[in-house]
């Protein structure tokens, strides 16, 4: 027959270094404390978090030797859990968390604009193919295209750097695009996601 050791004795043993005493205490009160937390927060994951935070406080208090045995262990732990539940609701009222339901999914109106992995790979492939195509252009056209598209320079800046008129720079850009389209059409290259 299992002898039920009193909580206060287990606490004393734990403070004196017996880690198994803590295991007994947690297992003994796990259901009552977890159910209490769950009855307030109605969420399994939040219950786990608050249960964990509660016992972290318990462990720290016991190890620091600041636990006073004025009351009983369980009511003390319940009080810690209760305060953490209040903290949880306060935090949630400052930063409300929206959870979807069966009828409404928040992701139907909120979207992440980032590409998924597959689309990112395709985009990288297209970028690399486009670079190869640009390399096929005559040097002067390639130069203008790089400055305009990749360096986002104005045609005035391009003309100053390359030492040609704005009209020439515009013309080179025009021919660069025409020639790129020609190469793409000729080789039936598809450059879309």
């Amino acid at each position, binding site marked *: 027959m299992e002898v039920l050791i009193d909580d206060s004795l287990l606490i004393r043993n734990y403070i004196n270094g017996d880690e198994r005493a803590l295991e007994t205490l*947690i297992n003994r009160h*796990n259901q009552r404390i977890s159910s209490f937390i769950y009855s307030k927060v109605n969420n399994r994951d939040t219950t786990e978090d608050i249960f964990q935070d509660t016992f972290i406080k318990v462990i720290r208090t016991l190890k620091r*030797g600041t636990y006073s045995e004025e009351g009983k262990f369980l009511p003390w732990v319940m009080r810690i859990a209760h305060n953490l539940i209040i903290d949880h609701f306060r935090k949630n009222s400052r930063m409300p968390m929206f959870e979807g339901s069966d009828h409404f999914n928040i992701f139907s109106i909120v979207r992440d604009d980032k590409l998924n992995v597959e689309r990112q790979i395709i985009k990288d492939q297209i970028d690399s193919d486009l670079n190869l195509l640009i390399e096929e252009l005559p040097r002067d056209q390639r130069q203008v295209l790089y400055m305009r598209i990749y360096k986002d320079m104005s045609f005035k800046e391009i003309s100053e750097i390359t030492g040609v008129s704005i009209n020439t720079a515009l013309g080179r850009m025009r021919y660069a695009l025409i020639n790129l389209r020609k190469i793409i059409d000729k080789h039936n290259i598809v450059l879309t996601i």
Partner: protein
Amino acid sequence: MENIYTKNQKDCKLIKSKPETVKFLLDYSKSLKITEAKGIKFESNLN
């Protein structure tokens, strides 16, 4: 008459925290060391 009963009575069920949570707490406890110097208590986690 005002309805004073909670809507979530069905949610009042008995549950237990997961064994992983309990294990984490026991490991945390084993790793936590308190050292006292000049009346100040220092916490350290020795993993």
